[in-house]
């Protein structure tokens, strides 16, 4: 941001390189700053202290409600978000909201969109949402079908990298070397989750050629809001993959949620980018690159890498993944993809 002399000004006041709202033009301020925000996911839900998903969902949905003038219907997969937001007989949702099954949120969303089309109510928009398990694994077929059909649905995946609601079992989104309830680091040959090729949902979404794909984290909530709003300007299938730390599942301090999200981005392990029609059109550059250890150390799910002796071999492989992402997406200044 430049001052009146055209000089570049850096903001350090909150330690996260984020500019506080009162220094921004009203139009640039976060939706959360407004008194008239929807509070779509209102208070009283039962999420853990420091839940990244609750934070991400609140921002994403309020942004979507602003973009659609409150004319939004949500279809939610089974998972933490659904469970903590609807503890019978209470509900935190202040929009029309349906939870059907674990694996069908994208299909239910498609059905809602079809009904709205049939009724000539295309002014009402649809958002589908789920965790990584419900999106990347059990909901994968339905998601792909929704993409292929071109249904007018924004699907948001809140990725905390495991089946958290059922007790932290690994999912197709669990990163290599992470400990989960069924990828414990037992014996030297099992340093946590396997080093597979992973399941890169954002790129799979891009391969479907849909109008808009983006990744985001709860470390840059403005960016998340902007992406949701950009997505709601478009029609057809859109996909946003949001990195949301889970203090309980990751063995991290509740106060570290946003910090961890920032570190994963700055390490290069989670590239933040936007894509349209199958091609990357923008990336968020890393401001101050950090080694992957900085990201891994605060999480007990990686504690087995830092024992005596440390598993430097594994850490090197993780660093190599980060480096590959940096190269692929051009995440450092002076680098292009």
């Amino acid at each position, binding site marked *: 941001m430049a001052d009146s002399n055209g000089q570049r000004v850096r903001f350090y006041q909150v330690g996260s390189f984020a500019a506080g709202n009162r220094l921004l033009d009203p139009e640039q301020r976060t939706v959360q700053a407004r008194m008239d925000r929807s509070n779509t996911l209102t208070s009283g839900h039962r999420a853990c202290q420091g839940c990244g998903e609750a934070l991400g969902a609140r921002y994403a949905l309020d942004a979507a409600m602003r973009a659609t003038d409150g004319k939004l*219907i949500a279809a939610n997969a089974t998972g933490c978000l659904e469970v903590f937001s609807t503890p019978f007989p209470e509900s935190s949702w202040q929009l029309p909201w*349906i939870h059907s099954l674990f694996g*069908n949120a994208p*299909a239910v969303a498609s*059905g809602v969109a*079809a*009904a709205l*089309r049939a009724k000539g109510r295309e002014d009402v928009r649809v958002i589908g949402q789920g965790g990584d398990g419900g999106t990347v694994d059990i909901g994968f077929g339905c998601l792909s*079908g929704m993409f292929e059909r071109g249904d007018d649905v924004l699907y948001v995946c809140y990725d905390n990298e495991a089946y958290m609601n059922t007790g932290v079992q690994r999912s197709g989104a669990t990163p290599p070397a992470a400990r989960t309830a069924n990828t414990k680091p037992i014996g030297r040959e099992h340093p946590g989750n396997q080093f597979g090729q992973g399941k890169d949902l954002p790129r799979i979404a891009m391969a479907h050629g849909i109008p808009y794909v983006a990744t985001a984290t709860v470390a840059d909530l403005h960016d998340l809001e902007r992406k949701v709003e950009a997505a709601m300007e478009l029609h057809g299938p859109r996909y946003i993959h949001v990195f949301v730390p889970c203090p309980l599942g990751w063995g991290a301090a509740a106060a570290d949620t946003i910090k961890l999200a920032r570190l994963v981005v700055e390490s290069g392990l989670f590239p933040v980018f936007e894509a349209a029609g199958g091609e990357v059109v923008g990336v968020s550059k890393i401001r101050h690159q950090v080694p992957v250890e900085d990201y891994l150390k605060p999480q007990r799910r990686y504690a087995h890498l830092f024992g005596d002796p440390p598993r430097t071999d594994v850490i090197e492989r993780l660093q190599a993944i980060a480096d590959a992402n940096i190269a692929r997406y051009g995440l450092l200044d002076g680098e292009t993809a």
Partner: protein
Amino acid sequence: MLRQLEGSAAVAETVGLCRPEVVCAYPISPQTHIVEGLSDLVRAGRLGSCEYVTVESEFAALSVCIGASATGARTYTATASQGLLYMAEALYNASGLGLPIVMTVANRAIGAPINIWNDHSDAMSQRDCGWIQLYAEDNQEAADLHVQAFSLAERLSLPVMVCMDGFVLTHAYERVDLPTAEQVDAFLPPFEPRQVLDPADPVTIGAMVGPEAFAEVKYLAHAKQMQALDAIPEVAAEFERAFGRPSGGLVRGYRAEDAETIVIGLGSVLGTIEDTVDELREDGVKIGALAIKSFRPFPLEEVRAALAGAKRVVVLEKALAVGIGGIVSANVRMALSGIALHGYTVIAGLGGRPITRRSLRALFEQAIEDRLEPLTFLDLDRERVEAELERMASGGRSGPHAENILRESGIVGARSH
């Protein structure tokens, strides 16, 4: 209007007249002609703003229906066999959420071994999922029941499954009196949902319900099906008044009033049963039939009343509860509490094996002399079965049953069935 056409086509036309707003289609034999017919109607612009959604699995098909129905759209899909199983989770979800979806089940056997021909194992496997289950005896009734199904579903806020025998009815050409658009419009008002996703009045649908309230919610589902015991005959009577022909209902007796022996069946086999009943009546045998048209809810009182004067009941089933025997007969037995009569279960037609008048006649003759076992497998090839059991008993790697039996029967395709 009277037409000679394929059962699937009659159903597609009639469903079209019900003004569905969202139709979901995933193909599976033998339902394919239904979804193809509806696609043609939509593309020809005959279904107005109806959305035809091609999905990637049956699980997706019913899930899309769930989303659409919850948004207030009149919704339809069709499936069979493996497809019904693949959407099993969604079946319970739809009924649990009280969504008035209508679905055709083109009854087909469930594998393994894979088999595309008609029997009732698919619908029977889902008899307790909370859907209303109706069985059509012929294509006229198959068409008519869909009109009644929408009315019933929307009246009770429960999903309805219309069962029609795969291939036997879906692919049979017969005479059907198709209703007109005016008739259906007069009979079926626009869908007024009891709950709907609407930004103007937000609701949360699908919350978790714990031990403190689950039983009550489940009881209400049962209570609604009990209400259906009244609603089904009401809708059938309304239908008869509006369209001029009887159709649907809970049960239908055929020459059963003074019968000593009553044969119970579901679906198209009733036709063959009735022909056989007529033959035996000509010989003075006091035999009759009872068609069960609503299997869920099960019409305990009507079945009991129909059987009250009989000496024996033969329940002819196109499905098998492996490990115990009959499914329909177990339900029938519940209706007979306190009534003493001989009950015989006959498993017939599994995997599409034809049920012939000749076999039925021999079977009924045995029945009237009480020479039947409690559980009979009609036209079973005992030799082949014994041979395979011996092979198994000899130990070691005896091989897969299906392949062994097929090998023994030679080239299957070379025989006309």
